[in-house]
């Protein structure tokens, strides 16, 4: 009984530690969407447009710092898994961008949207993470 109780407490503690990150993620995403809306749908002066474009910067920098702090707190195994995931994300994105570049030269695809590069990276990072986790199970 003690064993189950202690495992449950551990689970609750771990899920609570993600709350500040999730909160900042939600706020930063809302600011991102607001900035996109302002730039896309609202008629603004040029200085105001620059201000709107830079609006997501503080939230995103906060997220970046929170992620770096989290990485420093990971244990050696988790750091190992993250290294494999980041390497997979970085290298596979490089390959994807290269291939896209060649396809562009072959006039098979249009110009690359830079936002897509980040999406590629996230997808490849997630694939790398799950591959690493299942490898060490």
């Amino acid at each position: 009984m003690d064993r189950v109780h202690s495992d449950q407490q551990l689970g609750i503690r771990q899920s609570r530690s993600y709350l500040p990150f999730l909160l900042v993620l939600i706020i930063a995403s809302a600011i991102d969407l607001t900035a996109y809306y302002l730039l896309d749908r609202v008629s603004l002066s040029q200085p105001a447009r620059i201000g709107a474009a830079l609006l997501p910067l503080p939230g995103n920098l906060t997220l970046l710092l929170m992620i770096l702090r989290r990485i420093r707190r990971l244990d050696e195994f988790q750091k190992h898994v993250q290294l494999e995931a980041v390497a997979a994300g970085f290298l596979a994105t490089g390959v994807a961008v290269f291939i896209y570049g060649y396809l562009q030269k072959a006039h098979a695809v249009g110009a690359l949207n830079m936002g897509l590069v980040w999406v590629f990276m996230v997808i490849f990072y997630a694939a790398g993470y799950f591959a690493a986790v299942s490898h060490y199970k």
Partner: protein
Amino acid sequence: MKNRIRVLRAEKDWTQAQLASHIGVSRQAVIAVENGKYDPALPLAFKIARAFGKNVEEVFLWEGGDGGPPSWSS
């Protein structure tokens, strides 16, 4: 590298989560080390051994072939 974590854990009646909490690492780390999928660095190996009140050599066995005779082979 072989290890006796599963046996020692059973002796103490600890779950993997409890051992992980005891030594301050994730449960995934304990699972990976216990299953022999991941060889820990020295600090983690010492932490695990100390958690069981053992020396590192009593918990981990090097199987590289160049590290001298293996122990607890019986």
